[in-house]
């Protein structure tokens, strides 16, 4: 398997280099092509005009049922002489299509090879996982879906209501799919959906054991679509996506909590306003000498702004403890720090395109209240052609060493990814 991936990777790298040369030949060094000035008239235009010349443009790809992707990822730590933190090759294979007259299915498997310099290599040299696999059936007003996929709640990604699927965290926001059974009833301008998950995923540290992860989670969402605005109401019993360490016994817990929520969006000119609010009951928390349950109000407010190709996202995300005592504590890697009653996170991001939209850049900053954390990320994506893409990203975090995000202090990474998709 490893050899196969190696060979495949070498072929693809060769393909990338070769492909780039061909493109460069076609695009930039063909001196027969003279670009016109902006006032060019094309009066000779006719039905016989053959813009694409001899270059045939295939109508459809062969093996249309197959989705194949190969990506090579590297990560480096500038704070440690650019030592390699990530070096892995991922191969994804998938297919999708109708299942009988009423159904639809998708499957995507991912095989990952971790190379020796990858920090995960000591845990595992390779693995295979189901990225997505579901069957969906539709009957009149009802739809049911069974399998591994993602369910998005709320308006803001990472916001007060985006609590169903765990994500990799601030430095890796990739959402992790889970196994669900869900059903939705569609009505005029509204829909009611329910989900059940018997084995919720919980992000936990390998150093700590998790106490009892046998609880189920379930939830209901009622959405209403109106002209210029969408609103939705939420209720459910959920499992925290991140387990919490009990400072008394050193064991981590992820016990269920209850949620009532409301989310909405509204379009104003170029702006899209997003708002979420959630009441969360029975969240576990540490207190001096006690491991207790507390209630909390989470809310977020965000603006999506689009100006030409430039997109801005500005958001505020707040968590407010309803019952609060000065001896509330938040665990850190080695000890604990005092908890503030209100924790606010601010985010601003911007992205734009250039170079005939083949290139795009992005910049974002996440700042926590009291200057506990500032995480800045920048990215550059190159859409090489319909099959090849490359991206370069860099992140830097500055955190107070005596606060909850201390683990991220002086976090630095440079990531590079090359991806082929067929």
């Amino acid at each position, binding site marked *: 398997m490893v050899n196969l991936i190696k060979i495949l990777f070498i072929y693809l790298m060769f393909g990338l280099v070769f492909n780039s040369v*061909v*493109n460069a030949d*076609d*695009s930039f060094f063909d001196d*027969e*092509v*003279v*670009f*016109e000035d*902006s*006032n060019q008239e*094309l009066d*000779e*235009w*006719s*039905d016989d*005009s053959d*813009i*694409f*010349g001899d*270059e045939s*443009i295939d*109508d*459809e790809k062969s093996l249309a049922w197959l*989705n194949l992707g190969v990506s090579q990822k590297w990560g480096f730590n500038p704070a440690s002489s650019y030592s390699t933190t990530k070096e892995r090759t991922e191969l994804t294979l998938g297919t*999708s299509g*109708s299942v009988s*007259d*009423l*159904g*639809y299915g*998708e499957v995507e498997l991912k095989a990952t090879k971790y190379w020796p310099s990858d920090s995960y290599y000591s845990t595992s040299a390779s693995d295979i996982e189901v990225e997505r696999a579901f069957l*969906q059936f*539709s009957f009149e007003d009802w*739809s049911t879906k069974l399998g591994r996929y993602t*369910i*998005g*709640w709320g308006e803001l990604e990472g916001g007060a209501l985006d609590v169903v699927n765990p994500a990799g965290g601030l430095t890796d926001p990739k*959402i992790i799919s889970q196994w669900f059974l869900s059903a*939705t009833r*569609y009505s005029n301008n509204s*829909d009611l959906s329910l989900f059940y998950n018997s084995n919720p995923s919980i992000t936990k540290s390998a150093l700590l054991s998790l106490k009892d992860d046998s609880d189920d989670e379930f939830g209901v969402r009622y959405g209403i*679509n109106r002209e210029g605005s969408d609103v939705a109401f939420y209720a459910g019993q959920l499992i925290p996506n991140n387990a919490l360490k009990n400072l008394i016994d050193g064991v981590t817990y992820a016990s269920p909590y209850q949620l009532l929520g409301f989310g909405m*969006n509204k*379009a104003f*000119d*170029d*702006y*899209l306003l997003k708002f979420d609010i959630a009441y969360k009951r029975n969240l576990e928390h540490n207190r001096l000498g006690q491991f207790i349950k507390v209630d909390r109000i989470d809310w977020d407010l965000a603006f999506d702004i*689009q100006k*030409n*190709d430039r997109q801005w996202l500005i958001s505020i995300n707040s968590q407010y403890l309803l019952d609060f005592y000065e001896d509330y504590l938040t665990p850190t890697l080695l000890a604990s720090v005092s908890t503030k009653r209100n924790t606010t996170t601010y985010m601003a991001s911007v992205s734009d395109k250039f170079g*005939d*939209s083949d290139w795009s850049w992005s910049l974002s900053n996440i700042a926590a209240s009291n200057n506990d954390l500032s995480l800045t990320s920048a990215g550059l*994506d190159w*859409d090489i*052609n*319909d099959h090849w893409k490359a991206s370069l990203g860099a992140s830097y975090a500055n955190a107070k060493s005596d606060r909850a995000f201390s683990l991220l202090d002086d976090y630095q990474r440079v990531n590079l990814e090359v991806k082929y*998709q*067929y």
Partner: protein
Amino acid sequence: MNRLILNNSNSPLLVVALSIFLIISVSNVYAETDLSAREIMEKVDEESRKSTESAFTRMKLTTCKYGKRDGKVKCAEKARVKLVESAQINTGENNKDSKSIAIILEPASEKGIGMLSYSYDDSDRDNETWLYLSALGKVKRISVRNSDDEETESASIFGTEMTTEDQETGKLDDYTYELLEQGKFRGREVAVIESTPKPHRLSKSSYGKTQSWIDTERFISLKVQMFDKYNNPIKKLEVGRVEKINNVWMGRSLTFFNTVSNRLTNMKLEAINFDIDIKEDFLTQRALTDQAFREKYLKDLRKQAK
């Protein structure tokens, strides 16, 4: 994530296909050109709506940088190709609003992305667009340009040279029309009509004016020249392969030339079918989130289209 899909793609393709025909419609009754400019545009709009009602389309969008070689316009780089299926119906008062969905079949990286759009004739009502982000498992409303910021241009559709503004239909009251010239163009009798947005519309438009070469027998547009607000030509639409399909005259190959960036997008209609039974229930957010429902419906549309 699916951000790339957006490619600033705030809008459904299909409307483009069809609205572009705005301009491209039927009728062989009005060969006389004693109609006023406004009346001609009304006929174009009216006939266009008839011809685009309940349409199911499969189209190929090809985008590249262009230049001239041996005196002919040619792609000067490897072209990007997108294959899209779309469905549209006209709704609302006098069927002047429209609902549409566009689904990308290729390339693989964007396969399955669906975009739903509601377009309103009334200039006081803002058009609406939603996109389904499968990686996030939810539908996202897209902010569509309606602001008065003169520096803002309409968003490009699927990263092509077509913009959301190019897809708009109706709103005839938002423009003044002037008949510039009549004569022969590519062997057809045409009227060249200049459409100038009224002040309230101008502030929302990327174009200071457009000039359309309208075939006064078939009431289709053969060419549209777009100008910026300083009267500079910035974009051009050339309509080719005009055919009569289901008693409807239309161009099967539409090419947008961005004469500023020297990029073009060719939209080739591989298949277009009118009077298909497309239920309004299909053109809802359910078609984005419920793939089983969507596939079942599309299968039925493909069968009808054969």
